[in-house]
């Protein structure tokens, strides 16, 4: 998930680190707060800077399984995320995580009984098939599409609206669904947990209008939606708690107050007035308010900060003529001053140094540091490597977004590289221009790019494949290092085709090291996100993944 909030339908990116400056050295972090048995009832308010919510149609949503869309849409599987421990994939509307056959090319799911949409209609396998087929329509292409390159025989398919169906998704009866993939894929149980795999009533979910008043499968239904003002969710009377151990569905009603100014939002929650006590903020707490919270014991007790997780990294454009030499690229790893980068991003409350691609909290992560250079870097070693490479007067263009934190980090990188004799020219761009430059088909225009990434589901695959597989270069995809390495590709393919998660994780760890070993990336920091809640909000916690509150667990104290 490249720099975007875990909000229902948020396709626009918000720099992860924008709101995380200041307060260096503070130690008030907590990933969990005010826990207790989930009480039922009350109206929970979620203050949110987003103005519109496109993810009310699951085909278009980028939301994570445990945030907003988890309140509305169930899928075959979902995530079990507690305040501690590694997240796990668990059955949601299916009876299991999936049964693989044909070496992982075919996955079979059976549905639970007694499951209904918010309109009272039973949920069947046909609804799942239809929901997935919709994502192939041009009008509904904007969501998470992990399934698209995997499901077999979809080359010319354009959705179910003209009556055509995918033969690679079979529904032998109303409670069985079988997926035929074009290659073995061990992470399929994670893929079917994404929002775009949610069921919608078959034949009754028009592309243009379904998202305005969606039929839901989760514990809540949409009562009203007014763009820029509010989204009001009420209980889905047809949701069965017995079939859903993963959502507590505490509040009777949930009101998203949209279009909030993040500063006003934070002030509202700090003041904890009567209207704010049953509320929490969906936005990161801005730097000035983080400083304010430090001096306010009440607000400090209501601040929740995630463990370090999303990766901020320097993509090294290996297709740049200046960076063809491995030793020259290795010099970039040795020269970087991570202590300065942590400070630039807001101090230890906001970040911690990173040396791996698989982020903390994701199963399979093996900590390592291939370029040990201390916390402030080793410019002498970098100079030596550049000399060995025969590279002199190296001047590199660093593309970055023009938000304050990205700019500060870029300047910290520039300063550190200067000590190693590398001249860095910062190319500061707005988000759209930055994305177009680094994800476009041309490799020219930048040598380095500052970016960040949080996976869309907690699998090591999503830390590696979208960022470093050769198939993800250009066309708007995120291999912005433009690494096309046959060894890395082979490891990725092997890991993807491995059904045993333990064996796959070992392969992902190898791929992690191989990519960093190719010096195609300089891991900089793992970011931390801070959020505020009102004093009556309970079970407001952030697990090891994702770095956002678990909306599906939040309840209110009576």
């Amino acid at each position, binding site marked *: 998930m490249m720099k975007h909030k875990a909000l229902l339908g948020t396709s626009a990116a918000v720099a992860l680190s924008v709101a995380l400056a200041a307060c260096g050295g503070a130690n008030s972090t907590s990933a969990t707060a005010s826990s207790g048995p989930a009480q039922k009832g009350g109206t929970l308010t979620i203050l949110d800077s987003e103005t519109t919510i496109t993810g009310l149609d699951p085909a278009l949503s980028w939301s994570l399984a445990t945030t907003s869309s988890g309140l509305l849409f169930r899928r075959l599987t979902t995530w079990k995320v507690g305040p501690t421990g590694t997240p796990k994939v668990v059955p949601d509307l299916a009876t299991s995580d999936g049964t693989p056959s044909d070496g992982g090319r075919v996955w079979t799911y059976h549905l639970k009984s007694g499951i209904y949409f918010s309109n009272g209609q039973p949920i069947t396998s046909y609804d799942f098939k239809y929901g997935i087929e919709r994502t192939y329509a041009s009008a509904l292409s904007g969501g*998470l599409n992990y399934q698209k390159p995997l499901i077999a025989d979809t080359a010319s398919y354009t959705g179910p609206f003209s009556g055509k169906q995918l033969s690679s998704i079979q529904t032998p009866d109303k409670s069985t669904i079988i997926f035929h993939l074009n290659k073995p894929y061990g992470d399929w149980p994670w893929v079917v947990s994404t929002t775009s795999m949610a069921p919608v009533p078959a034949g009754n979910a028009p592309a243009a209008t379904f998202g305005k008043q969606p039929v839901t499968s989760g514990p809540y239904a949409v009562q009203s939606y007014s763009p*820029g003002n509010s989204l009001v969710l009420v209980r889905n009377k047809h949701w069965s708690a017995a079939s859903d151990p993963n959502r507590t569905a505490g509040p009777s009603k949930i009101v998203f*107050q949209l279009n909030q100014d993040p500063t006003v939002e934070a002030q509202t929650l700090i*003041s904890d*007035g009567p209207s704010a006590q049953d509320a929490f903020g969906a936005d990161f707490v801005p730097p000035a308010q983080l400083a304010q919270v430090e001096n306010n014991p009440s607000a400090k007790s209501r601040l929740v900060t995630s463990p370090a997780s999303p990766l901020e990294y320097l993509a090294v454009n290996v297709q740049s003529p200046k960076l063809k030499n491995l030793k020259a690229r290795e010099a970039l790893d040795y020269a970087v001053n991570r202590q300065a980068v942590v400070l630039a991003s807001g101090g230890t409350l906001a970040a911690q140094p990173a040396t791996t691609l698989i982020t903390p909290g994701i199963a399979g992560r093996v900590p390592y540091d291939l370029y040990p250079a201390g916390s402030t870097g080793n410019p002498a070693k970098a100079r030596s490597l550049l000399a060995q490479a025969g590279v002199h007067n190296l001047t590199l263009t660093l593309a970055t977004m023009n938000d304050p934190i990205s700019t500060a980090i870029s300047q910290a990188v520039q300063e550190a590289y200067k000590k190693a004799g590398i001249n860095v020219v910062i190319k500061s761009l707005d988000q759209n221009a930055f994305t177009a430059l680094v*994800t476009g088909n041309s490799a020219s225009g930048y040598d380095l790019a500052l970016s960040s990434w949080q996976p869309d589901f907690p699998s090591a695959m999503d830390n590696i494949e979208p960022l470093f597989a050769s198939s993800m270069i250009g066309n708007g995809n995120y291999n912005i290092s433009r690494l096309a390495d046959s060894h890395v590709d082979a490891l990725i393919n092997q890991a993807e085709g491995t059904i045993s998660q333990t064996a796959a994780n070992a392969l992902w760890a190898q791929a992690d090291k191989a990519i960093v070993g190719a010096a195609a990336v300089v891991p900089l920091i793992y970011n931390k996100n801070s959020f505020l809640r009102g004093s009556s909000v309970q079970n407001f916690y952030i697990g090891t993944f994702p770095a956002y509150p678990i909306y599906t667990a939040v309840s209110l104290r009576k």
Partner: protein
Amino acid sequence: MRHTRTARFLITKLGGMIAVLLLVSLATYLIFYMIPADPARFECGKICSPGTLRQVRAFMGLNEPVWRQYLSFLGAIFAGRTYGSGPSAIVCPAPCLGYSFQQHETVMSLIGQTLPVTASIAVGAAVLWLAAGVAAGVVSALRRGRALDRGVMTVAIVGVSAPAYLVGLLAILLFGFKLNILPDSGYVPLLQNPAQWAFHLILPWCTLAFISAAIYARLTRSQMLDALGEDYVRTARAKGLRERRVIGRHALRNVMIPVVTLFGLDVGTLLGGAVITEKVFSMYGLGALLIGAVQSTDLSTISGVTLLAAVFVVVANFIVDVVYKLLDPRVTA
């Protein structure tokens, strides 16, 4: 003869208005296409294959040459437009200002949702700032050099200098959080609850009025001081007219000519979106819509809202010209 002159005046103005609107829409399109971003990419989703990207680009009509896209945009205003074909096609009925693929709504529908918010802010604030600004300027001019004059002008300087964002935040902190007597955010539609509509708009109105009234106070004061030294004012006084009549009937009428010009342009601009005020007070008006569209490279919304904002400014200019003519009969086409 007089009717002919008026008709010529109106035709000239209307022709100018249409030319300006065409230029604005064309400039918006051309500027947009110079931005290195691909709107189809945003609609292709995450994990986007070249084939899907091509399909999406064709669906959005972005595979056509720029000039044809522009003509399609203009044509849709009168004839409507359909994106795609078959059962999943998206229909945008006339007058169609485009379809927002980011928000999955027609731009007309988005404008319909946001314009009442902006209009509520703009009209209320404009009435307040015009009344307060002109009154303060007149009083200040009549008490020139005295404590009242200095006090009013000091407040005016503060108003002119203060950024809207800061004034809005301070107002929220004071009246919303500290005194807890006014709502700090949100919009209630007029037809839903008129009292709550006004109650929620008090802070935005006052914020905008505080900033803008200052300019009007300073302008009115200087114009009034000039007018008070004019021969016709001396003549009016010499004729024995009451001071109230001299000021209100003779001096103020001339003072209002530049004030009306400024007011028309300000209101027209504000109707195009009170960006900062809408953001601070969490109100989803045209300004917030436009900013969101710019951030997400939503060409249809940018073009539609820009065109509408231009319409407001152009129409405001036209009304100013007409009022000008009423205030000063010497003005001709």
